[in-house]
């Protein structure tokens, strides 16, 4: 009976439940909470809140749900889903060498001899999500997502109105303005508010409103911030209909918002086929670091427009996209463990992310206003806000705000031009930041 009770007690003591109610051993009380099991408990609650937002409120559920669940899994103590694979050489001790020569050494690992010295070839299998995370770490998943996005995107409105490229460029101001702000915070002298240039660039890319681009750049420049940046990026993308309209109304007049734009010209199949080829050549020659993202985006679009590769076109936008979405979501969420997420700078990242979106919207709308004046009132400035590349949510917001002024105004297709231009613009901006700080 005692043995049974002891066994049950041992199982309980080594379970995750016991670890949940512990504190870390070093640092302030907040640091000890963050590094102990109590931090895991807080993260489990946060993960459950995000799951609720994804399912009940439908906040970008395709990504927020796996991100939230990955966050939940990694914060269950002792689960080991993100344990790193261990592959190391450990020298044998003197006693072990003697046993080895006597042939009585118990070999828990293979023994390797190098130049007369003997080493344990220690290998421990990593966790499931650690292996899947290698696709994020080596920048594989985000370009594959872009392949699917390119296959799903119609660049016709952009080709019909090439000026939309400029609006897509202007909306990337949010990225660089936030970078400046994040760097400036370091001058306060408070180390917990200071970000390196790489970290500031990763925070700034939230303003591109492009999840795969944000994950791709952050995994290269500041992988320690991947969890909070991904959560911030996808949460704000879902909040675009709330964040953008007040800024759009603040920066435009009723007359400007009521502008009805000319119908877009038809776009030929030839133009649609040549578009991805030209974009790839022009952009990648100028900015080689943008090759993975821009190249895969345009390849997916070429699959779509060529019309001769129906099988792989359908695979790119369906099965491949879904598989990679699952992997990228759950592994990015799994980087958000308590020790990295429960820091004062996480709140700062969330605030800076909001500013990035706001500045991006403002940049696009202001250039839209300039184009309104330069064209004699032919361009509705509202479509500038769609340069924030949350496709197609930002375009729908332009449509909705325009219709509130003029119910007969249909801005959706006009706004799709800057919207998809913003995808290219944010990839170019990420390439610039990677070139400068990578």
């Amino acid at each position: 009976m005692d043995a049974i009770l002891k066994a049950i007690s041992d199982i309980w003591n080594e379970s995750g439940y016991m670890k949940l109610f512990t504190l870390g051993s070093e640092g302030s009380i907040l640091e000890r909470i963050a590094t102990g099991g109590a931090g895991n408990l807080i993260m489990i609650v946060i993960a459950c809140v995000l799951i609720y937002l994804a399912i009940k409120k439908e906040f970008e559920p395709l990504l927020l749900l796996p991100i939230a669940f990955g966050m939940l899994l990694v914060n269950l103590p002792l689960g080991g889903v993100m344990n790193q694979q261990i592959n190391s050489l450990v020298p044998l001790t003197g006693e072990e060498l003697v046993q080895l020569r006597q042939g009585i050494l118990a070999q828990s690992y293979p023994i390797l001899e190098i130049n007369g010295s003997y080493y344990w070839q220690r290998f421990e299998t990593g966790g499931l999500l650690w292996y899947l995370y290698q696709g994020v770490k080596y920048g594989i998943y985000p370009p594959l997502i872009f392949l699917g996005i390119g296959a799903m995107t119609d660049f016709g409105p952009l080709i019909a109105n090439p000026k939309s490229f400029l609006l897509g460029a202007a909306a990337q101001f949010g990225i660089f303005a936030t970078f400046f702000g994040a760097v400036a915070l370091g001058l306060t002298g408070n180390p917990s508010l200071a970000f390196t240039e790489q970290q500031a660039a990763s925070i700034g890319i939230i303003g591109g409103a492009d999840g795969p681009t944000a994950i791709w750049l952050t995994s290269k420049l500041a992988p320690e911030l991947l969890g909070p940046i991904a959560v911030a990026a996808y949460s704000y993308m879902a909040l675009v209909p709330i964040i953008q309209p007040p800024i759009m109304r603040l920066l435009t007049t009723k007359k400007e918002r009521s502008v009805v734009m000319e119908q877009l010209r038809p776009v030929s199949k030839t133009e649609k086929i040549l578009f991805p080829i030209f974009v790839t050549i022009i952009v990648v020659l100028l900015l080689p670091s943008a090759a993975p993202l821009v190249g895969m985006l345009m390849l997916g679009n070429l699959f779509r427009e060529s019309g001769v590769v129906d099988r792989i076109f359908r695979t790119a936008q369906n099965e491949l996209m879904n598989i990679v979405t699952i992997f990228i979501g759950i592994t990015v969420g799994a980087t958000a463990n308590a020790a990295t997420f429960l820091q004062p700078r996480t709140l700062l990242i969330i605030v800076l992310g909001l500013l990035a979106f706001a500045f991006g919207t403002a940049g696009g709308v202001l250039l839209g206003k300039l184009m309104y004046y330069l064209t004699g009132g032919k361009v509705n400035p509202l479509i500038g806000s769609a340069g924030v590349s949350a496709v197609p949510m930002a375009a729908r917001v332009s449509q909705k705000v325009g219709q509130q002024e003029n119910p007969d105004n249909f801005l959706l297709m006009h706004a799709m031009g800057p919207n998809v231009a913003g995808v290219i613009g944010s990839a170019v901006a990420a390439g610039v930041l990677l070139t400068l700080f990578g």
Partner: protein
Amino acid sequence: MFFCLNFLNRDGRRMNIALIAAVAAGSAGGSNVLGSAAQVVVIGMVVVFLSLIALTAVFWVFGRAAYRKSDYVADEEAAEPDFQPMAPPMEYQEDISDEIVAVIAAAVAAMAPDGVKYAVRKVRRVRGERPVWAAAGIAENTRPF
């Protein structure tokens, strides 16, 4: 950046205004940090705009070369259907259901050779001694003869 102040009053407390030397150096360093951050902003926006201006120019030129409004108007006019007077409606007896007529018309259309269109004009019931299916079976079996 911090400085501490202890005021000297006439009762003899020591006045000690200490500005850490690093404040001055920090201020200069801060300007450098902000300066290089501003440079990044300018470089970034310039490169993004240059790339997309290049794309704008290329596709504006391409659009001018590839799209002529007159071509699309001519295509739209050519695409307009050639309206012809409607044919008189098909006649069929009242005791024949619409579904039977539809099936017959579909069977006739399926039997038509390529490039030939048959139109069913009239459907009437043929009264016979044998059931229709039986008659069809006999016809099929006796066809070789």
